[in-house]
């Protein structure tokens, strides 16, 4: 089985970082995986997205055009990618910033005020990780233990003091 995940938002929201954590979850679980960023001028503050595939089989195209799971962190991303989600798929979005307008009835929406939660809990820049926590709770992507190990791998040694905050953000997302 292959799970295709698309993460999308503004540059600076930690889209690629959140995608990296998911990719490392696959690595920790000894699965096949790929991580592909959008690159180019849009990296500098425009829209930014990231494709992650996790599978038991070798990954074909690493470019996700019809995601099983979508994390949307701004309105343009939600508007653009909600239509591409596979039937039965799930969208995780920041309800602080997004009005979830869609005619789709064959997908499930999980909106949480991740930006607000990050601000309230003094987790600056933690909105992306809070959404990851929600995704972890609502899917079979991996265990909490795996995700914690992934975070420990992804956070660079120079920022090791931020690992605890990321764990808190995951738990916030899981409990909201």
């Amino acid at each position, binding site marked *: 089985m292959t799970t295709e995940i698309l993460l999308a938002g503004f540059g600076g929201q930690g889209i690629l970082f959140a995608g990296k954590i998911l990719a490392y979850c696959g690595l920790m679980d000894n699965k096949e995986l790929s*991580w592909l960023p959008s690159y180019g001028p849009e990296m500098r503050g425009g829209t930014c997205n990231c494709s992650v595939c996790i599978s038991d089989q070798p990954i074909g195209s690493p470019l996700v055009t019809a995601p099983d799971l979508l994390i949307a962190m701004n309105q343009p991303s939600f508007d653009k990618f909600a239509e591409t989600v596979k039937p039965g798929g799930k969208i995780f979005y920041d309800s602080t910033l997004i009005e979830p307008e869609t005619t789709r009835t064959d997908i499930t929406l999980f909106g949480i005020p991740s930006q607000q939660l990050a601000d309230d809990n003094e987790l600056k820049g933690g909105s992306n990780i809070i959404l990851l926590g929600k995704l972890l709770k609502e899917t079979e992507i991996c265990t909490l233990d795996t995700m914690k190990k992934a975070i420990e791998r992804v956070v660079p040694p120079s920022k090791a003091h931020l690992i605890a905050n990321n764990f808190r953000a995951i738990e916030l997302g899981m409990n909201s």
Partner: protein
Amino acid sequence: MERNLMKGNEALAEAAIRAGCKCFFGYPITPQTELAAYMAKRMHKAGGVFLQAESEIAAINMVLGAASTGVRAMTSSSSPGISLKSEGISYLAGSDLPAVIINVQRGGPGLGGIQPSQADYFQATKALGHGDFHVLVFAPASVQEMVDFVVKAFDKADQYRMPAMILADGLLGQMMEPVSFPEITPCAHDKSSWAADGHKFKREHHIINSLYLSPDQLQSSVMDRFERYEKIKAEETDAELYLTDDCDILLCAFGATARVVRSAVNDARALGIKAGLFRPRTLWPFPVKEINQAAQSAKKLLSVEMSMGQMIDDIKLAINCSKPVEFFGRTGGVIPTPAEVLAEIKRIGGAE
């Protein structure tokens, strides 16, 4: 073996260092920049040389200088930069110098775009500079192959005394995949019979040169090289054959496109269409024997490329136009999707 997650560009760099590359000369260009950045960080610690050159032209000539002394040398760029390097590559070939050149392709012509492309196939396999010559061209389709092929490229370049190219693309360069680094023992090639590294008064002086003003001499030097090419054509071709034993339709694709096509082949099989995939791992020499084997049961072939159709010419030549060869392509940085390829398989009659 330990699996790491690495970007293709970074994996190329790490593999080169492990393969005994002692110097890297580069110039920034998207989408290969991470490779140079990685080299800048690692090369010094590895006891090698990293230098950002003033231009692609200078970079390839620094490679030429280092390679002349028998040192393993590499440069990397993306399409427009490779055009600038082509002068130096021709000189490398004409001087029988080994070196590794990476092309993380982007869309062209001109400044083109910065998204993935395979439109430099002709350039890499037919005309990587002026004159009668070839370079070895390896086409990885995964980050792991980027590692494996860099190691191989250095060895084969040394063995045959010729430049080798890794023809990748922006998608492979930018993506991360699990990768493991095998224990690498670079093959030791004795270069003492030709390297210009100072004669110490112990031998005649060595001359690294591509100039022959006598047509007879030039002809004979080129012919010597082409004799070597014949050996390479016989011994160094490499391809992956996937579900080709009973296929009615044989898809042909290399690099990142082959991943998309592989998905489409699986989807076609699920629908009962007997599709198979021929994926050349070497583009020069082109795997002629392998494609003929793969195409044995096929009624039609379909070349899928991120270009307007370049490898298709080699396919037709390789099978001597014995079967129809159709084409499906995307260009300018557009990546074909498995659904598009599947639709094409159905369209050209795979469903019969």
